[in-house]
Each structure stands twice: as C-alpha cells, then as structure tokens.
C-alpha cells in the first residue's frame, strides 16, 4: 500500500536539492533572552519543569556561566581564577599533582586538557550522564523565564508538549487514521505513543550545544560509531543546516525524547515546497513540531521515512518541515496547511 512502511522499506535516495532549500523551520522563532534580566538568574533550571513534571536529569543540566570556556572547548589548563569563576573542580586534586602545583607546565596543561576533554566527552554519553558541569556545555538548557509576559523558549516548548500530551491522552481518530496506521509496527498506536510522550523530555538549546552529532544517531555505541556526522557539534550542525529542531533518533530505552532547539527565523519567502500550497493558518506549529520530533524519537524513523509514509511516493524533494505541516493539518489544528 502506498505510503505504508515496514521494516523492509528502503527509502529512496535524495534528489540533490540545493542547500538554499534546507529548511527545518518552525512557524515563528522562539523568544529567547529578551525577558531575562540576567543570565545568572535563569542559568539554572528549577527541578520542576514548567508543566509540572520533574525535569529529566535536573541534577546535571545546567548552564555554564557566560565567559566560561572549559577545557572541552579550549585547550587551556584550569587556572585558579578560572576555577573560581566557573566553580569548577580539577579532575585531578591539586594535592596529588605534587611539584606541578608550583607552576603549570606545558605537559600538565596538555595532560589536563586531554583528560578533561576525554572525561567530558565520555560523561556526555550513555550511562555517563552523571554530574558534570561540562555537561552543561553539551546539553545547555533552553532559555527560561517563568512568569514573563513573553514566554521564553523552554516555556514555549513545554506548553506545546502539554498541548500534544492532552491530544494524545484523549480519543483521537485522526491520530490513528493519519499517523499511526501509516506504520506497520505493533507499537504504532496512540496509547503507547502517549506513554512515551509522558516521559520527562530532554529539551536543550541547540544553538549553544557542543554535544557531538553522533550522540543523536541512536542509543547504542554501534549507532554512534557508524554515525556519519561524527563529532561535529550540534550547534555547528544546526547553524549550517538552518535546522530549528533535531532529535535523538530513536530515543534511548525508557527515556523521553531528546530534542535540541534552535532559534531559526521564519522567512515566508522561502517556504518549502510540500506538494501543496503555502500554509495559511496562523495557529502555532509548536505542538506539531514536538509531535514531529517525538515521532523520530519514538519510532526511530528519519525525515525521509516520515515523509514517505505521510505523503507517499514523490515526497523525496519535500523539506523536513512538511511533516510538521502534515501533522498540524491532519491531526492538530485541523486544516489549512497542506493538501497533498
């Protein structure tokens, strides 16, 4: 059946679309620092997320104060003033460094940087997300300003997630007809997807993240070893792609979705072609974007596979955002975006 997908499907290869059409836009940029009085006040997230659910890994998600570069980002030894300003600890106790306390040698500098970089890399990987301030550089929190008139990115995304959770928690015939029936899998159903959505999400600021892209290639070491994107930082990738959101595909077992968001300015003149007319609806696309990213995390499907399932053959040239339009049109907002 056209548009259906099973595990034996081999998605078609790309059609060589130019980079100018690389669009993964949401319908509007999320507000960022405008309402924040200072970084210090909002740099650390509260353990409870704006929608009331416990924040995933709230003990290690933090933001390194501005100006801090860290050994993972710069190959410098951790000076005393640096440690004080960033409240970091050396990986090796100073007392054990012996004579090196007297002066920082080149070898010590290289060694410290090497160990610190290795440690920060490894800790950012599976089973190693323990407490590390460097995790804050890899997984920086989204800007948050609880109670502000104009919500910040974190509040926007949580509101979108809350809205989507509400849709999935209630009977939704369109969800089954237009989404879950498209995938020939036993776990392709609304109740199980709703359970996945209920897990604490991991939303991060993709514009600042130094996490390696292979972190998003899947939950296992094998996925990451094979990942084409290697250690390219998430922020660099998102900037080069003009991506507004990217997810871990699929999510780690028993964990919620991991999504990196980026502030991408919406340009109506570069609206991607989705085999349909341009969007006319003014409602927010945020819940549809979260839905789109959650499908990546839940099923492990890539953009190409989602587009193929939703739009059928001939969707090879469509942009990633077309999936978002489809979900907004068919399931969430009820028409006005695309009529493939």
């Amino acid at each position, binding site marked *: 059946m056209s548009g259906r997908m099973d*595990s*034996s499907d*081999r*998605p078609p*290869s*790309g*059609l*060589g*679309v*130019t*980079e100018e*059409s*690389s*669009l*993964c836009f949401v319908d509007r940029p999320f507000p960022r620092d405008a309402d924040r009085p200072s970084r210090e006040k909002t740099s650390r997230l509260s353990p409870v997320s704006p929608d009331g659910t416990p924040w995933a890994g709230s003990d290690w998600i933090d933001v390194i104060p501005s100006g801090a570069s860290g050994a993972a*980002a710069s190959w410098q030894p951790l000076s005393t003033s640096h440690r004080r300003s960033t409240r970091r600890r050396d990986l090796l106790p100073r007392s054990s460094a012996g004579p090196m306390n007297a002066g920082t040698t080149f070898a010590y500098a290289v060694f410290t940087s*090497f160990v610190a*970089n*290795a440690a920060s*890399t*490894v800790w950012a990987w599976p089973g190693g997300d323990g407490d590390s301030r460097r995790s804050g550089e890899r997984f920086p929190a989204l800007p948050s300003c609880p109670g502000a008139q104009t919500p910040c990115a974190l509040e926007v995304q949580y509101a979108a997630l809350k809205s989507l959770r509400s849709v999935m928690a209630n009977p939704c015939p369109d969800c089954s007809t237009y989404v879950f029936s498209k995938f020939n*899998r036993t776990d392709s159903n609304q109740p199980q997807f709703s359970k996945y959505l209920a897990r604490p999400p991991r939303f991060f600021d993709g514009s600042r993240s130094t996490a390696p*892209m*292979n972190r*998003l*290639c899947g*939950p*296992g*070491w*094998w*996925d*990451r*070893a*094979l*990942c*084409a*994107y*290697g*250690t*390219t930082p998430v922020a*660099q990738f998102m900037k*080069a*792609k003009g*991506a507004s*959101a*990217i997810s871990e*595909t*699929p999510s780690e077992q028993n964990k919620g979705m991991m999504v990196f968001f980026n502030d991408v300015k919406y340009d109506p003149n570069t609206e*991607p072609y989705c085999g349909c007319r341009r969007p006319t609806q003014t409602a927010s696309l945020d819940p549809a974007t979260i839905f789109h990213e959650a499908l*990546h995390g839940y*099923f*492990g*499907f*890539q*953009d*190409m*596979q989602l587009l193929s399932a939703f739009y059928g053959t001939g969707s*090879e040239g469509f*942009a*990633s955002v077309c999936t978002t339009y489809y979900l907004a049109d068919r399931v969430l907002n009820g028409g006005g975006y695309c009529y493939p």
Partner: protein
Amino acid sequence: MLSVKIRFILPVVQVALAILLMVLARREMPPQHYCTVQMPTVGLVCMGINAPATLFRFAVGAVLPLYKLERSPRPLPAFGTEQLLFLGAVIALWYVVGRWLDKRLAGKMSTTAIRRWPGVLVGAGLALFGVPLVVIAVEGIQSCSSRFGTLSNPLGSLTAAMLALAWGMTLTVVSIVRITKAIRMRARM
C-alpha cells in the same frame, strides 16, 4: 622478476575502495533539507570492511575535539578531519594485514621467535580492538533485530555489524593465541 609485497598493495587497494565507497555514500546521503541522519548501505559496508579503523576513528573522536580542525563549519564534510583520520587508519590496518600475509607467504611465521613482553603487548593491542569490536557489533546486531534498524538502514547496519563481528572475533582469537604463545615461549626458555 619484480616482487611487489602485499603489505604495499593491500593498503593502496583498500584505501581506494574506501574512498570510492565514501564518495558513493556521500552521493546517496539524504538531501540537505533533512534534519535527521541516514547512512547509505555503501557507507556502512565501508565502515564494516574497515571496522577496526572505524573503531579507532570513533575512539579518537571521543577523546580529541577533531571538529576544531575543520576549516569551515559544514554539516557533513565529504573528507573532513575524521574522514582523513579514518583513511589513515585504513592504510595502517591493511598494512599490518599485508605484512602478516607477506610473512605467512614467505613461511616465516613458524620460525619467528616471539619474545615474551613484546608478544604480550602486541596481543594486548589486538585485544584492545578485538574485544570492543565484538561487544559493539553484538549490540549492533541486537539493535537491528529488536528495533527498526540502526540508522534507519537495517540491511546496511546489519552487514556492517556482521563484518565488525568477524573482525572483532578474529582479532580477539589472534590476540589470545599471540599472548599464549608469548607466555609459553618464555616458559620453555
């Protein structure tokens, strides 16, 4: 008659093959406007054929910030630092294999005495690649069977995992034999 040693032929052939497969994989990569990763089968096969080099690239990338060596930030460099590192590892890998084959063909394998500590160190070095390869290859095969395929390419990732498993098991067995021989050699002396 000019005899060309395998240790020189093999790396050249393998690196040329790796470059070819990488170029083909690059051409099959999804269009730029997708925000997710999909690995073409040829790219995965290339990584499976050179599984120890893939592991080496991954390990080095985990420790050193290789992306900082890129001149211009690109979402997916065709032959960036990591790819060049991978190709360097491919050359080294197949040189070692070619050297082993040369010795084997010359019949020197049985006559070469293995000293204890060098033998143990070489064996340990082989195990350093072999054991992790077995572990992650098994993980890869499991993920292919239990989920919708690794990297949304079940065929490619399963092929790569099987190749990696073959490499891992070979290296592990060779390392065990090497270490055992080295220890026994000392015991006889």
